[in-house]
């Protein structure tokens, strides 16, 4: 069995503390703390030498070394001579290896506590640079688009097709579900109000206009921000962590052309189509409520819907969808490219991408509402 580890103290002369170490000093045994020795110093300020005798040490591992290290560090600070007798050879050699490379001293300075004012100022500066970054990213992306149309920017066709599939076909199930339900909900809410005036038939108008002008693009935008914007940020963030983006840069391939453009095009192309699809599904959802619960015939519902919509409404919705697509792709790529080099940073980038995308979608929607009102669309 393991022998109990302990320290025995004795004073041979007034200024010398002798400590005999015995037993097994391993991580699994209950060990005396270095404080036991150091407290002796505190109680007796005359001590100028510490001599530790390790001849009765039975077994040890690196926890023993930390014990010795802690005492020796403290002694150095207090200007006390520290000596170990009969230190096992292996322990001596390990301690030598540990001190072979001198400690990096300035490393600690780098994490100084910052004052409150510093932090306020710092976050203001960070906010400012983040706006500059965003604007310059949009500028670079526009340049890349221009380069592309002059045939100078290149990316792999297969990447583009994969993103198209990801944004388009793969997104259909969730867009179907949400749009259908939003149509249903709108119809229910409208029906309750319109029934009071005996104007149930106008449920068709309400659902059609709301879906086509607003909800179709908005809901698709929010779904895609979560589905695709987040994915873009995670992909580029991970590439940042693995230095893949650096590798592209040093090879003279612009990450903007190679990584951002195909993603941007894919989403900008697919979003209008998804919006149109979402409009249709929403109207279908409204029809289910209208026809199923309010005694409107399918034909009535159809003609009423047809009468309430014109090309302006439809193209407005689709245009919004396209713009939201651009916003989502840019937000995702921007946050991904800005990502730090750790797993947590990639997570933050993903969150930031979704938040940025949704905030800007809503702001853009607001601007659209004001503009449409002013222009009478």
């Amino acid at each position, binding site marked *: 069995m393991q022998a109990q580890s302990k320290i025995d103290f004795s004073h041979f002369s007034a200024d010398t503390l002798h400590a005999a170490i015995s037993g097994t000093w*391993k*991580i699994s045994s209950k060990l005396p*703390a*270095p404080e036991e020795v150091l407290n002796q110093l505190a109680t007796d300020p005359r001590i100028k030498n510490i001599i530790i005798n390790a*001849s009765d*040490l039975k*077994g*040890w*591992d*690196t*926890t023993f*070394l*930390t*014990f010795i*290290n*802690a005492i020796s560090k403290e002694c150095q600070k207090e200007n006390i001579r520290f000596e170990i007798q*009969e230190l*096992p*050879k*292996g*322990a001596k*050699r*390990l301690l030598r*290896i*540990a*001190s*072979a*490379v*001198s*400690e*990096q*001293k300035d*490393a*600690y300075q*780098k*994490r100084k506590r910052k004052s409150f004012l510093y932090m306020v100022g710092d976050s203001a500066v960070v906010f400012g640079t983040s706006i500059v970054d965003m604007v310059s990213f949009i500028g670079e992306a526009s340049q890349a688009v221009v380069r592309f149309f002059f045939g100078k920017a290149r990316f792999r066709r297969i990447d583009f097709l994969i993103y198209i599939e990801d944004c388009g076909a793969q997104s259909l199930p969730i867009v179907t579900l949400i749009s259908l339900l939003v149509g249903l909900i709108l119809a229910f809410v409208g029906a309750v109000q319109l029934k009071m005036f005996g104007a149930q038939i106008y449920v068709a108008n309400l659902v059609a206009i709301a879906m086509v002008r607003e909800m179709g693009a908005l809901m698709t935008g929010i779904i895609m921000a979560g589905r695709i914007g987040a994915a873009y940020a995670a992909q580029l963030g991970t590439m940042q*962590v693995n230095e893949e983006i650096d590798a592209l840069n040093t090879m003279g391939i612009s990450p903007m052309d190679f990584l951002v453009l195909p993603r941007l095009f894919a989403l900008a192309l697919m979003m209008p189509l998804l919006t149109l699809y979402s409009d249709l599904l929403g109207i279908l959802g409204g029809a289910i409520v209208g026809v199923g619960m309010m005694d409107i015939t399918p034909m009535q519902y159809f003609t009423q819907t047809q009468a309430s919509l014109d090309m302006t409404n439809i193209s407005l919705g689709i245009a919004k969808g396209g713009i939201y697509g651009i916003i989502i792709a840019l937000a995702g790529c921007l946050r991904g490219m800005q990502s*730090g*080099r*750790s*797993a*947590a*940073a990639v997570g933050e980038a993903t969150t930031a991408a979704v938040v940025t995308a949704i905030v800007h979608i809503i702001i853009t929607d607001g601007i659209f509402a004001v503009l449409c009102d002013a222009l009478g669309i």
Partner: protein
Amino acid sequence: MTTEIEKPNTPHIIVSDLTMAYGDFVIQRDLSFTINYSDIFIIMGGSGCGKSTLLRHLIGLKSPAKGQVFYGDINFWDITPDERSRIMQKCGILYQKGALWSSMTLAENVALPLEEYSGLSHSNIKEIVSLKLALVGLAGYEEFYPSEISGGMQKRAGLARAMALDPEILFFDEPSAGLDPVSARRLDDLILELRDSLGTTVVIVTHELASIFAIGNNSVFLDAETRTMIAQGDPNRMLAETDDPKVKEFLTRGESAVERVIE
């Protein structure tokens, strides 16, 4: 006066008739060798021959297509995952790519296993962490994040983490890759010292000829072409006695092949 080395020359890990495959793609077949207590066991072979894969079989990350791995007399792949993870707690592992947790500082990386398993106090853990980092030459880098240090330093920090609990067995996947000759030499000294003082069994994947001969006392040589082991034993003896041109070429950095061409 050092710790007596536990059961020298008794088997610690036994690999018997092991076949490793990814799906239908067989990487290596019919591997049989024994790693004794306090061995410094070298796994060598050309790039892509399956050394890291072999390590993954030894540390419970990948199950064999055929054959067994024994820890003492426990059939490693026959026991429950819980029992397996209990065995793995006595092992320290350095992955080929470092695999440091990127959102933790070096100190936190090394401290995590200690906090989980040692039950030591906070200040004690801090001391141990500093010592472990000092042992690999990273004293003072406690507060750095893995992304803020160099590739070789990440490797060494990974070593410090592997050694955190003074494990019985250390698995190192190319520990000296990316290190300068002096640091590589210091690392060899450290490995020898851990073996001599603490009786640690060390399993190393390495290409570094100098350290293979300096520290290895047993080894296995994997060949990518024939997909099996073509030599085993003490590397120094292997060099002296082997007739296999591939082994000879590897152990002499291809000099013997050059000679053959010149002749």
